């Protein structure tokens, strides 16, 4: 068994991070790390402060303590790509998928048209998430899963070293979630970014994560899924019913969840 933390340096290190909002302590003394190149999952029940921890990392909520984000080998700041839990927008608004993509990096306003090189880049990115067929579709007409993939393509356009996802599977149907998790796995291996995601979907975590941070206002446990997702820890953070996950059946790097994408993963392992 290899310990990811010992072989990798941390892409992100939380050191004694505390977040209080309106007099309530949401997060208390969080110290945890996100190993470089890992797929790290933050798990915990509703109200555990998972999203708040992400927002603190992104500088959207103020926190005490330190959050250290490492640098690239060239000494530059890590480029971060972010995929929110939901995109709240006016679904009737005329905005095509292609325009949505190009908006991220073309300076020339969309009403003067899209430059050929930007169009090509957008189409390449959309193809990488299997969405190139829907480039002319209105953004508001996409299903939850399709929108999630377009958001992934937009984030990939940042050429991220660190990809941050907030509940990637929420609001997406089973099949959509499956396509999305397969894609992420493939892209992470191809592009080598560090992935940090918030999830309360334990099958997804057991299947994909290489590192898990269990959170319930404080860090309850941290380590590989096998170390962390024990019935003892799960009972502690989720309550009684989580004896369903049998941690003894988990092996590092192998896939062990009921979804079909996992069955496919078994053959790679």
């Amino acid at each position, binding site marked *: 068994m290899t310990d990811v933390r010992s072989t990798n340096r941390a892409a992100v290190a939380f050191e004694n991070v505390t977040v209080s909002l309106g007099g309530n302590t949401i997060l208390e003394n969080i110290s945890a790390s996100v190993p470089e190149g890992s797929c790290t999952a933050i798990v915990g029940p509703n109200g555990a402060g998972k999203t708040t921890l992400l927002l603190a990392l992104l500088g959207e909520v103020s926190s005490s303590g330190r959050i250290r984000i490492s640098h690239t080998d060239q000494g530059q700041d890590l480029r971060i790509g972010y995929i929110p839990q939901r995109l709240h927008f*006016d679904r*009737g608004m005329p905005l095509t998928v292609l325009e949505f993509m190009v908006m991220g990096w073309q300076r020339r306003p969309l*009403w003067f*048209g899209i430059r050929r090189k930007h169009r090509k880049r957008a189409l390449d990115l959309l193809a990488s998430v299997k969405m190139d067929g829907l480039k002319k579709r209105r953004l508001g007409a996409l299903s939850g899963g399709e929108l999630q993939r377009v958001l992934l393509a*937009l984030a990939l356009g940042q050429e991220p070293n660190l990809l941050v996802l907030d509940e990637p599977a929420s609001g997406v149907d089973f099949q959509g979630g499956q396509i999305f998790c397969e894609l992420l796995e493939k892209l992470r291996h191809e592009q080598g970014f560090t992935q940090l995601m918030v999830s309360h979907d334990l099958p997804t975590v057991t299947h994909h994560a290489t590192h898990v941070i269990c959170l319930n206002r404080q860090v309850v446990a941290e380590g590989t899924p096998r170390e962390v997702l024990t019935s003892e820890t799960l009972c502690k953070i989720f309550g009684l019913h989580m004896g369903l996950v049998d941690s003894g059946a988990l092996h590092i790097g192998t896939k062990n969840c009921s979804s079909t994408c996992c069955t496919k993963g078994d053959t790679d392992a």
Partner: protein
Amino acid sequence: MPELDVLYNLIPKMLPFESMEMKFMQQALVGLLLLAPMVALMGVQVVNFRMAFFADAISHSAFTGVALGLILSVSPHWTMPAFGVIVGLTIVASQRRSALSTDTVIGVFFSGVVAFGLAVVSRDKGAARNIQQFLYGDILTIGNNDIWAMIALLSVLVFFQVYGYNRLLYIGLNPVVAKVHGVRVAAYQYIYAGLLSLVVIFSVRAVGVLLVTAMLIVPAAAARNFARSSGGMVWWALLVSTTSAIIGLLISAQDWARTATGATVILVAFAWFLVSSGVNFIRGEERA
């Protein structure tokens, strides 16, 4: 200062109507033609990102701007835009810091600003005449200084929209994603609010506080029905607002009409909106 008369003299040649021979009509047309692209460009974002209430609050701050001018003995030409911008920037600053919902923050400012204006005006009976103009607007009394100010504002605004349109779209869709992906969200939000406040204040002079939101929203709403893309929506908004301005002014000056110019402009834009809804309905039927 270069002469605007060259511009005015062109108008009767391009629009050979009897009413267009008069200088105040020529000034009014130039004023409206400067205002139309501004409301079209800003209106697209107001409609897509549901900022109508914001525009409404700013327009009512014009009321307090007039009142402040009375107290300080300064021309309302200065106090209205200055106060409008202050209110606009304050609302954005509060939104960014407050846990209250956006419409509550705006509503609070809205009521404070209107109450202050009413309090001042109720003390001074002579202010009532100013208030009439403020309620209904009067594009026909627009002067050369106003025109110059609008030319300056239009130049800044077009530059800002060309430079920042895509970024504003990004911020409107999700400010956190935009910020993480390198957009300077705060700067864009403040500049947009400042410019929108100025556009609203100039629109108050043209169509009055009752119709200022319509000026921003109706062309953009029609454009939204016509357009199939975000880029297309801008061009449709420009077309609808410019044609509404010209046709509205011409109709209002006809003997058979003799209606208030601002209201007539909005009515033409509303007719555009009805057509656009029809087009949208037919398209929906085709798709179904």
